[in-house]
């Protein structure tokens, strides 16, 4: 039977209040802190509760052995208790007072009262939680497990709040700029007025061009490596090259395009497509290879046994079976090409690009520069201080984010759908 220990439970409740309120003052509210007495009271109360339950704790959590207060248990506890006492003392003695301005080690930051006090309380609250859990579950492996798992859960919650916050901030601020005109009219007066039509078109053509280059090359390379190549040396070299290409920073692709393409084809849609296509190549090769590898050999053997040639087997049997995986890779490639700025900023885009000329209404003039969403947003960010572009910048960010996330969502759905459906 497990005894209920009210004291550590109460101190956990206090600690949660301290944690949430100090995080609130740390992250959101930088005005005057109004809960200082509660913080001091909370720390002192948990000091009392924890020392009381430590004194009355005479058996381990499994209720069989006596607690042995070794130095390695007692010293951290004593240090924590000293901390709970020190913070209220610092505040009441006026050392941590509202006029605090603390500079140390020559860092170019000033640590003020509004920052230092919530930080001290935050650390205190985490220590309270640690000690309370130890006292609740005893100093056993079980206690350590509860402690670690609650920290892990806390970090999961933190990440989710953070990442959810990023999306909701953009949604909340950007929705105000949304209108049909915003999406369908070109930008005017340095982006202060008008919309983002040319950017959407430019993004579309760049992505199309990039996929036209990277999809055949990438899938072809994957097929060669997986179905044809008997030469393991070549395979090793290609694998290393793909790995390196995958890691090449996007700005280096930009430099490469500047040196390699701009002198020959100029700042143009063509140059941008080639660079983005090369950048996408490793993604598509790797995902296609994964997909081809997952096709079982028995299918290939069956086809060969019927007298099909190698290419017939690949075309009629292997590719159809691997299609969902290959498609997923391509869709991810589309999203990546739509969201990259650095590779194209000197090779394909200009802020003032006019809508692209279409031959016969559907073949774009590839020698023209274009504007795309990322580059437009970058320019709006540069204009932020000088011109009134903030609303349009939020709108552009929202469109870009929605575009990229929905493409990625399609990729994930396709993959999950087929992963469930296909079982060999």
């Amino acid at each position, binding site marked *: 039977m497990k005894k209920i220990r009210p004291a550590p439970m109460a101190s956990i409740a206090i600690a949660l209040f301290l944690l949430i309120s100090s995080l609130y003052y740390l992250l959101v509210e930088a005005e005057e802190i109004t809960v200082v007495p509660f913080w001091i009271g909370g720390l002192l109360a948990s000091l009392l509760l924890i020392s009381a339950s430590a004194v009355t704790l005479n058996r381990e959590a499994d209720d069989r052995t006596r607690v042995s207060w070794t130095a390695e248990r007692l010293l951290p506890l004593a240090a924590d208790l000293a901390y709970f006492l020190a913070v209220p003392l610092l505040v009441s003695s006026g050392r941590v007072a509202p006029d605090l301005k603390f500079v140390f080690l020559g860092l170019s*930051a000033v640590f003020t009262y509004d920052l230092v006090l919530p930080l001290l309380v935050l650390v205190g609250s985490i220590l309270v939680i640690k000690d309370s859990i130890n006292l609740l579950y005893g100093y056993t492996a079980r206690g350590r497990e509860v402690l670690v798992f609650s920290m892990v859960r806390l970090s999961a919650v933190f990440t989710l709040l953070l990442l959810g916050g990023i999306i909701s901030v953009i949604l909340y601020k950007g929705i105000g700029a949304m209108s049909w005109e915003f999406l369908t009219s070109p930008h005017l007066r340095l982006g202060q007025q008008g919309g983002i039509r040319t950017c959407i078109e430019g993004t579309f053509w760049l992505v199309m061009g990039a996929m036209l280059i990277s999809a055949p090359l990438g899938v072809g390379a994957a097929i060669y490596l997986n179905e044809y190549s008997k030469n393991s040396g070549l395979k090793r070299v290609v694998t290393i090259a793909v790995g390196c290409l995958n890691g090449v920073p996007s700005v280096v692709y930009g430099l490469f395009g500047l040196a390699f393409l701009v002198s020959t084809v100029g700042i143009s849609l063509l140059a941008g497509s080639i660079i983005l296509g090369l950048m996408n190549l490793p993604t598509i090769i790797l995902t296609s290879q994964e997909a081809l590898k997952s096709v079982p050999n028995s299918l290939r053997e069956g086809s060969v046994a019927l007298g099909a040639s190698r290419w017939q087997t690949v075309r009629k049997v292997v590719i159809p079976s691997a299609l969902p995986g290959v498609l997923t890779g391509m869709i991810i490639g589309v999203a990546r090409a739509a969201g990259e700025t650095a590779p194209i900023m000197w090779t394909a885009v200009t802020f003032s690009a006019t809508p692209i000329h279409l031959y016969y209404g559907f073949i774009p003039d590839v020698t023209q520069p274009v504007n795309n969403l990322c580059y437009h947003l970058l320019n709006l960010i540069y204009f932020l201080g000088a011109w009134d572009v903030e609303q349009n910048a939020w709108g552009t960010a929202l469109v870009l984010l929605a575009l990229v996330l929905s493409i990625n969502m399609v990729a994930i759905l396709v993959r999950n759908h087929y992963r469930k459906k296909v079982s060999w």
Partner: protein
Amino acid sequence: MIVMDPPDKRGLLRSRRYGEGFVEALLFFAAITSILAMVLIFYFLTYESFLAFREVGVLEMLLGQKWHPPGDIYGMMPIIVGSVLITTLALFINILVGIPLAIYLSELAGPWSREFLKPAIELLAGVPSIVYGFLGVLVLVVYLERSFNMLTGRSILAGAILLGIMFIPALTTICEDALRAVPKEFKEGSLALGATRWQTIRGVTLPAASSGIIAAVILNVGRIIGETMAALLVVGNVARLPSPVFDAFDRGAIFTSVIAGEMGEVAHGSLHYHSLFAVGFVLLVIVTILNISADQIRVAIRKKFGGY
């Protein structure tokens, strides 16, 4: 890989064989494109930066204490120090949040929360870096400026926080895959011996997945060093040695931000232009070494400990 050459002696299938050969040649060309691309990238970066290295001197360029384009002084030390500071801090944030999150997803989360969380995190890995940069400028920089009473919130710290958060999904996804690849029998064996779940994770699962986790961390170092747009917008872009050297609250510059920030306004062919290519060349070499070593480390650790 099945070897299959149909006995083709009757001449009937000759045209088909030519077709087969043609397809194979096309596929071979596709396969060597990535080698070609890598060679071309290295060639052009070396070619364009050669002039700067010759003019300034390799050692002066790499170890020079000052980066001052108007005076034609190009020393990369401030950039290297900035990059080291940013990468260390960002990686700290990245690991501190990313690995616990991976442990949560692979070991603790129930089926429902994994169904929901895993795609959500994969989705977030795709958020464009310029969007992070935009939020960095309007939210993070403003926040830091206010709470640390800094002259400007654009700082190495801002860059580190932004990059650290940005690459959490990338780290978590790979680490989670590595953790999930550990065979169930290992964990069950440990649990059957009476170990708690945490003891099992620490003593069995994490060591068994260590090759994947270490490789993921090294890959993330490469991503952080190579990230451009977000860093460009928040680090302040002042290539000057911080004093003291570890002052993360000062403005700074990293490889990518220097290139992206200055390339737009240099004269084509000037020493400044070539020096920026030299910065790019150093960055490319660092990232390539990181990528190859991540691969090697994964292989080596797997050989030694039999990891997954």
